[in-house]
């Protein structure tokens, strides 16, 4: 058990270090920081001076160690485009993205699970067929198109919901939230739906498949033989056992939601990290790209680690497989 945790932890550190290395290489080889700071017509003395000040004349491993040290403190330098500290830019944008991703994840779970259960129980009837077709469409429709369609219907045609920005937000210390105002909710609704559709269809298909699988097992037959009510069989026994993989996948997908928020944020001009990142890509703003990359990698690694450990704790069968398997 402890060996497993340690190994996963070591893997996570290796992943983080390789991502940090990629980010470091971006700084080193893409664009010249000295030219960026001094401009084209600086004297060689000025350049050498700045080079020494920035520590760019030191050996490669020392520079990398310094970079990692700074990154651990959240220090990524100045944004080339906005001239502000990258860390404060990210801190400012972080709550918007997190609120959007969390709302979307909850929406996907709350709607997706019952739809999946329904599609499994009423397999073959008209509505469950319709749900399956809808889910195929959900996979084929790219996120940005869903956003555009929602804007067209709710913001342009019916004019009932706003189509850009976060609306009114309340500041709780460094965290700004739109969850506490009516206006904030109105602004959140369309982006959250857009972001959740793909996950929703995924969860629905997964729950359906798992339910069908579980309903064939012996203990469900026994539960029926014991004369239990349908409702208690479906929700007490069957659903409970399908939820382990569902929660795992949803947990893993939360990282995906934060990444896919880039697209949703662009469509709805949502002032989150994704919008910051896409503008950084367009303008080749390396410090912002590197910081975003490291942050996303950290979120992913942490989520993966937690899910791994949870899974390990929940399912005793895995303990056997993982310790015995060729890893």
């Amino acid at each position, binding site marked *: 058990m402890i060996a497993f945790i340690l190994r996963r932890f070591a893997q996570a550190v290796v992943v983080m270090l390789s991502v940090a290395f990629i980010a470091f290489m971006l700084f080193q080889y893409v664009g010249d920081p000295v030219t960026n700071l001094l401009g084209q017509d600086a004297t060689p003395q000025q350049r050498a001076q700045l080079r020494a000040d920035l520590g760019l004349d030191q050996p490669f491993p020392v520079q990398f160690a310094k970079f990692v040290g700074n990154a651990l403190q959240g220090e990524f330098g100045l944004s080339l485009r906005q001239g502000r500290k990258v860390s404060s830019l990210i801190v400012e944008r972080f709550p918007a993205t997190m609120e959007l991703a969390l709302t979307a994840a909850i929406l996907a779970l709350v709607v997706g699970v019952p739809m999946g259960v329904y599609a499994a129980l009423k397999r073959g009837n008209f509505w469950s067929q319709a749900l399956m077709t809808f889910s195929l469409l959900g996979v084929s429709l790219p996120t940005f198109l869903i956003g555009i*369609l929602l804007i067209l219907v709710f913001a342009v045609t019916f004019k009932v919901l706003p189509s850009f920005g976060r609306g009114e937000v309340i500041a709780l210390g460094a965290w700004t939230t739109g969850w506490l105002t009516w206006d904030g909710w109105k602004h959140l609704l369309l982006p959250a739906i857009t972001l959740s559709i793909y996950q929703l269809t995924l969860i629905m298909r997964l729950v359906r498949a798992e339910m069908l699988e579980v309903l064939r097992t012996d203990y469900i037959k026994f539960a029926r033989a014991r004369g239990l009510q349908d409702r208690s069989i479906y929700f007490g026994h069957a659903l409970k056992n399908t939820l382990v993989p569902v929660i795992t996948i949803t947990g893993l997908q939360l990282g995906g939601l934060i990444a896919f928020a880039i697209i949703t944020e662009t469509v709805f001009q949502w002032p989150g990290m994704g919008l910051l990142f896409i503008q950084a890509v367009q303008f080749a703003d390396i410090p912002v790209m590197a910081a975003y990359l490291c942050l996303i990698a950290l979120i992913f690694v942490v989520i993966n680690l937690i899910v791994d450990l949870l899974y390990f704790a929940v399912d005793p069968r895995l303990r056997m497989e993982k310790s015995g398997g060729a890893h």
Partner: protein
Amino acid sequence: MQAALVRFLDGDVWHSFRKSPMAITAAVIAFICIFCALFANWVAPHNPFDLATLELGDARLPPAWDEEGKAKYFLGTDDQGRDILSTLMFGARISLLVGVASVLLSVVVGVALGLLSGFAGGKTDALIMRVCDVMLSFPSILIALLIDGVGRAMFPNAHDTLAFAVLILAIALPGWVPYARTVRGSTLVERHKEYVQAARVIGVAPARIMRRHVLPNVLGPVLVLATIQVAQAILTEATLSFLGVGVPPTQPSLGTLIRVGNDFLFSGEWWITIFPGAMLVLIALSVNLLGDWLRDALNPRLR
């Protein structure tokens, strides 16, 4: 050649195709889209890139069935007076080109690495599989965006061809992982079979065994995967272009058209963005359906 055709028409795959209305519909739609895209020069009613034929007075006309529309422009015109139907065909050509090229690239890389991984085993295998794990734990769109951003930073004034190359690379690079894993799995099975052992015994070089003997036997699942991935690559390309980091603006793909049309959504000109969107979904959906059907048709357990 003729024998192969006869064998195909007589075989299971063709039979299952004829029995599946879904597959036929999808194939017809995909065929029409691909045909129009490939032969856009001849099929399209106008040439949207021929500046001489554009009339700014015809800008932002609604589709022909609307009162204000003109029969000349069946699906209306965009802000520069270009016929939407024609830009759709030319845009689909670029989308398909990027999609197919990036899938080909990821198939080649993925199959090669998968074969190597499965055949060599040991440290090589472990290294390649760890890289796969790391790649899989990040969404492909993020990797694509990153590569695109780096390409943009390294070649700020890139030529169109270079921009295309970077884009194709950006889409292909996160895409090779599933091929590598699939091929590695099948290779592990194949390499213990007798024909491989026989080849080894008579002294065939490992590289030749991989290429000539193992490769043909592991390509089935790759074909299915590649079909579905084409749809995925087209959507990724459209997403990148929509975000403004995809194809160069002089060569608009479907994603670029949607991006441009998006600016006119609020003034009520929905057709500039909705028609390219519909075309995109039509292509993706039909290719996806074809892939699903192919997977079932080639799966011996489902016969």
